[in-house]
């Protein structure tokens, strides 16, 4: 028998039909949020089509919801256009009978946090969502694709996605991560190495002892960032860590289904000797806490590094990219990273807002206070359940005592569609995934870091090496 990659196994087991190398693959789980779904529901309505399998869909408003007081419900969303979008999701879900965790449901949160939390993301599944960071769900040994709105409509109507098989890239990270070095740093180090187009159109499988040692939260952070390397999907093989995480969640297999499910899930790894189109290796010991300095996740260096100078650019295109980035970020080449002062801190987003992230940030902030130059330090839990758990552990108190604000769950300042945002020129240490121009607010300057590094920067007022903090 031919040795298969995990990607091949997942893809092949979902092919409904194949013609000229283009396949229809069956979709097991469809996650839906308010921003990329209204036009899809509208399309169904106009064509008089029905949803193929309603119970494959789980919907949640996350991008637009306020993270402050929600006691007045959807009607209380100040921005009328945001409000309409959230209302439209509620109406569409009600009309089609789709399960939705509404804004004030305890289970509401960022779509990529709640899927796994509910057991709605399971090993072996195909998962789609009208959102690029759907790659997150690959952490479970699932094939997860971010799709556009036309495809959202297509999956709703047919339960299938038109796909060609991707090339495969194996990223092998062996060795042991140093103290204070996290999955986020692995992700940024990989992107620093291969570039934001380095995984273009590929399915990346993350493997190696350092990946095996990661918790599910860490694996989700890593797969979440796979899209920032241009990948079509990020995957990690199933092991006991995966199975233990999944057990007992609301959508997980029922008791009588459990053994059969586990037996199948245990086959979800690349076979010995399986061939990948490309292999990239990193040594875990070499990875430092990372800080992005520019306007693309590949513009990244270790915390003890400097803003690179132009002579290090690999070609003309990169030179002009870097020049534009210096200007936008208000930085000069050769500035040491730990001399960069910040104005705001954001701990949250589908990359780093799970309980483990909050614990790690709280451990750094405990007993300290944010620096006087830090105008705002936000902690936005990934879901209502994460928030409740954190409060049970007293993390909210640690944060608020240290001068951080403790908010309601949602995407928040990851993309600043709600009221949380940077003002022009403001500089932010952020645990999110994108540092594009204007991402966190018009003219805002984003530096991507891990939760530990963000908390340390909040206290110091500038970036610091959390390992010696």
């Amino acid at each position: 028998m031919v040795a298969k990659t995990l990607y091949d196994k997942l893809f092949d087991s979902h092919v409904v039909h194949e013609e000229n190398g283009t396949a229809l693959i069956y979709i097991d789980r469809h996650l839906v949020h308010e921003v990329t779904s209204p036009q899809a529901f509208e399309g169904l309505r106009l064509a008089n089509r029905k949803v193929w399998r309603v119970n494959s869909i789980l919907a949640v408003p996350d991008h637009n919801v306020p993270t402050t007081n929600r006691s007045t419900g959807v009607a209380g969303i100040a921005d009328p256009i945001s409000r309409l979008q959230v209302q439209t999701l509620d109406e569409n879900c009600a009309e089609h009978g789709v399960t939705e965790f509404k804004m004030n449901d305890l289970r509401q949160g960022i779509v990529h946090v709640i899927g796994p939390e509910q057991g709605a993301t399971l090993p072996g599944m195909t998962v789609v969502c009208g959102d690029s960071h759907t790659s997150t769900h690959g952490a479970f040994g699932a094939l997860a694709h971010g799709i556009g709105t036309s495809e959202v409509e297509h999956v709703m109507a047919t339960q299938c996605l038109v796909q060609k098989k991707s090339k495969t890239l194996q990223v092998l990270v062996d060795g042991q991560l140093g103290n204070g070095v996290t999955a986020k740093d692995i992700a940024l180090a990989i992107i620093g190495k291969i570039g934001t187009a380095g995984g273009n159109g590929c399915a990346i499988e993350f493997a190696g002892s350092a990946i095996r040692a990661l918790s599910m939260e860490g694996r989700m952070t890593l797969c979440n960032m796979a899209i920032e390397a241009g990948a079509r999907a990020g995957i990690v093989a199933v092991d006991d860590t995966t199975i233990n995480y999944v057990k007992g969640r609301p959508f997980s297999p029922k008791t009588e289904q459990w053994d059969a499910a586990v037996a199948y899930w245990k086959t979800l790894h690349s076979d010995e000797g399986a061939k990948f189109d490309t292999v990239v290796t990193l040594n875990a010991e070499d990875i430092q806490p990372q800080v992005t300095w520019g306007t693309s996740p590949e513009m990244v260096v270790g915390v003890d590094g400097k803003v690179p100078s132009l002579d290090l650019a690999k070609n003309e295109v990169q030179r002009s990219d870097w020049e534009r980035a210096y200007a936008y970020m208000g930085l000069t080449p050769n500035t040491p990273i730990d001399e960069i002062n910040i104005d705001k801190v954001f701990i949250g987003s589908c990359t780093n807002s799970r309980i483990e992230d909050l614990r790690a940030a709280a451990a750094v902030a405990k007993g300290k206070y944010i620096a006087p130059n830090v105008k705002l330090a936000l902690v936005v839990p990934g879901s209502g359940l994460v928030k409740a758990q954190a409060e049970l552990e007293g993390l909210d108190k640690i944060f608020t005592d240290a001068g951080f604000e403790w908010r309601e769950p949602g995407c928040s300042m990851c993309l600043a569609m709600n009221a949380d945002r940077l003002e022009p020129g403001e500089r932010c240490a952020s645990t999110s995934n994108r540092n594009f121009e204007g991402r966190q607010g018009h003219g805002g300057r984003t530096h991507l870091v891990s939760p530990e590094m963000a908390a340390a920067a909040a206290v110091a007022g500038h970036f610091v090496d959390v390992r010696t903090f």
Partner: protein
Amino acid sequence: MQAFKQLNGLVAPLDRANVDTDAIIPKQFLKSIKRAGFGPNVFDEWRYLDHGEPGMDNSKRPLNPDFVLNQARYQGASVLLTRENFGCGSSREHAPWALEDFGFKVVIASSFADIFFNNCFKNGMLPIVLSAEIVESLFQEVEKEIGYQLCVNLAAQTVTTPSGSKYSFEVDSVRKHNLLNGLDDIGLTMQHQDKINAFELKHQQTQPWLFN
């Protein structure tokens, strides 16, 4: 979906690599629940000097004279020429909607981000990959000649310059067929309804927990 066959179009050069979908259409405009009307806000942060919000009268906003699409010679462009990894970042289909609404039918680059590339085809737009060298030479030619047009022929898979140089490009045969004929993906997939039903039944028997 609208069919795409052939186009003789004015070319606008956007000389940047890694143009992300946040830049193509900033998030504040994603709050719309419609598909149309994004054109006036395409590249909003670069095109205007002020900060744009939905509901503004865009005709009254101060234009950034340095931004290429604001220059007189590129008015009416339908071909966007740009650099590598165009359309990276968010999956928002609002990006091709905005480009299309503005008037672009073709985007030429040395590479594209995957989801954006895919989204173009769903909206009657043609993304074309040409080598970095060819893209570079096109940039130089556009720069030199006011009114520079390219002729794009999807059936023949060629891009022809005013001086007659012809470059061929690759396109997936299924996508080409659908685009040439303006076929709706959902309709095509529905032709395989029986197969989907059969697959679903089998899938449910082997992995019942997926259907809980």
